[in-house]
């Protein structure tokens, strides 16, 4: 396939810009793109930020590293996958343990859709995430949502491994949504 060269070039640029992506692509290389279960869900899975246990319990870092601040979605889907549900269960427990935090759930889409539809799709993912957290006991009045559609990707390349990282809902402590 003619694609063989260009993704590599895309990855090189990404790697140069974002150290976190080095570990990500190493993980992908080991696990293979098709295996969703092995997708890293947070910086902790990547072995970054000093690793588990280094963060003060109840801190932002604790949430990001030990709980996992984001979940991923299948193409054109807003269904919460089994691996994502496990992350959200941890989020719900943590948010109940630390009830002072309000959160904003940011919904995102990959670039393989049109701008306007993706704004709605990101909103749908944020809403699905909020509903799941509510079903696990997080009070609705602590949660806001916002959709950025495809406008704020975290990974840049031109293949599936990268688009899957952008189809996400990120739980931000504080944050500003509607």
């Amino acid at each position, binding site marked *: 396939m003619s694609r063989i060269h260009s993704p590599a070039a*895309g990855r090189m*640029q990404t790697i140069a*810009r974002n150290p976190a992506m080095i570990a990500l692509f190493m993980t992908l290389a080991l696990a293979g793109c098709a295996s969703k279960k092995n997708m890293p869900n947070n910086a902790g899975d990547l072995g970054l930020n000093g690793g588990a246990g280094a963060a003060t319990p109840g801190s932002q870092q604790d949430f990001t590293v030990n709980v996992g601040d984001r979940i991923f979605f299948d193409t054109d889907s807003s269904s919460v996958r089994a691996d994502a549900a496990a992350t959200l269960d941890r989020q719900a427990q943590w948010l109940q343990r630390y009830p002072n935090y309000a959160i904003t759930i940011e919904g995102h889409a990959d670039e393989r859709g*049109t701008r*306007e*539809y993706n704004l709605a799709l990101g909103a749908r993912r944020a809403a699905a995430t909020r509903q799941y957290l509510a079903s696990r006991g997080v009070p609705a009045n602590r949660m806001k949502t916002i959709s950025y559609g495809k406008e704020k990707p975290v*990974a840049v390349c*031109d293949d599936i491994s990268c688009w899957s990282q952008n189809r996400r809902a990120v739980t931000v402590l504080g944050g*500003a949504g509607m």
Partner: protein
Amino acid sequence: MFRRTLLRLLVVLTGLAASLPQAWALVEININKGNVEPLPIAVTDFIAAGDLGQRITDVIAADLKRSGLFAPINKQAFIEKISNPNQAPRFDDWKVINAQALVTGRVTQEGDGRLRAEFRLWDTFAGKQITGQQFYTQPENWRRVAHIIADAIYESLTGEKGYFDTRIVYVAESGPKTARKRQLAIMDQDGFNARALTNANELVLTPRFSPNRQEITYMSFEGNQPRVYLLQLETGQREVVGNFPGMTFSPRFSPDGQKVIMSLQQEGNSNIYTMDLRSRTTTRLTSTAAIDTSPSYSPDGTQIVFESDRGGRPQLYVMGADGSNQRRISFGDGSYSTPVWSPRGDLIAFTKQSGGKFSIGVMKTDGSGERILTSGFHNEGPTWAPNGRVLMFFRQAAGAGGPQIYSIDLSGYNEQVVQTKGFASDPAWSPLLE
């Protein structure tokens, strides 16, 4: 003679053969790319002080050339040097270089400082003047006068309204993809006179012109509240459209300029609403547990085309302006998005996603007669020139780069990049000023 040639060309491209006289209706309809033979035209430097005449001439020639319907002849080939643009030219000198039409003109400064631009359009083979007109303007508007003259030439030779004296609002983009800055910007349709309308501190998307060209409606994330706004071009004044309990997006004006139609997001669903700009009343037009978005009115204001995934994947639907009789019109492979009703009323342009490619296409308003104009990794968001013959859209290559705006003829022929300083997306073509 040449006039008929060009008219034939347009018959071929627009499928209007049935409504034209018998002799032209016999022309074969064949819309292969490259089928169009552009009309050779000589645009001579206007007589003027300094290089102003030449600058105006260059803008006119560039407009005509970019339309794909004209082939301006290299000035080096000209035999006659025009010294009095009001005098009949030596037609034989122009016929011999195969100039089927000839433009001559003069620009002078009036006592009050205004420019007076006059031009004549000649039929060299018939040996007579086709039209002659003059315009007055402030000197800084010299490009605009050139566009107006180009429109007059286009209209004289094709029988259709021109589109050169128009502007484009768009989203100017800069910076890396993971930290992209976006601003609203406006430029002439040929890419000149670009200026920013907002600063780069807030995410802005999907600007669209009002019918009188004085206002823009767009979406902004200002204050992390994603909502639809109005912007007065003259004053820079901005206001939120409506007080909705969620994200509003995908705005567009009604053809009479009295309403803004848009999507409102609530939980996982988005539905289509209008807001009357005078009475401030809002009306809900769709009510589904799905994503309904990208609404666009028919030019007579009686119908609305929109995108919905109520049937699974995004498809195009049409409804009455009151939300009645909602029916699906797109049934091809893949999904369909961003429908835009043609200013002529007969076609709907769209973005189609199929087989890993994003295409720009058009279909009739009942969904039949689909034609793909261009296809590739990512093409999105068509907008119509006010005469319904040309579209712009934006294209994004794979990887880390950014989008650029392109124009393409309705035939799928004459695809061209619109030069912008940085990345650019979401073009919206202005109406013509009457």
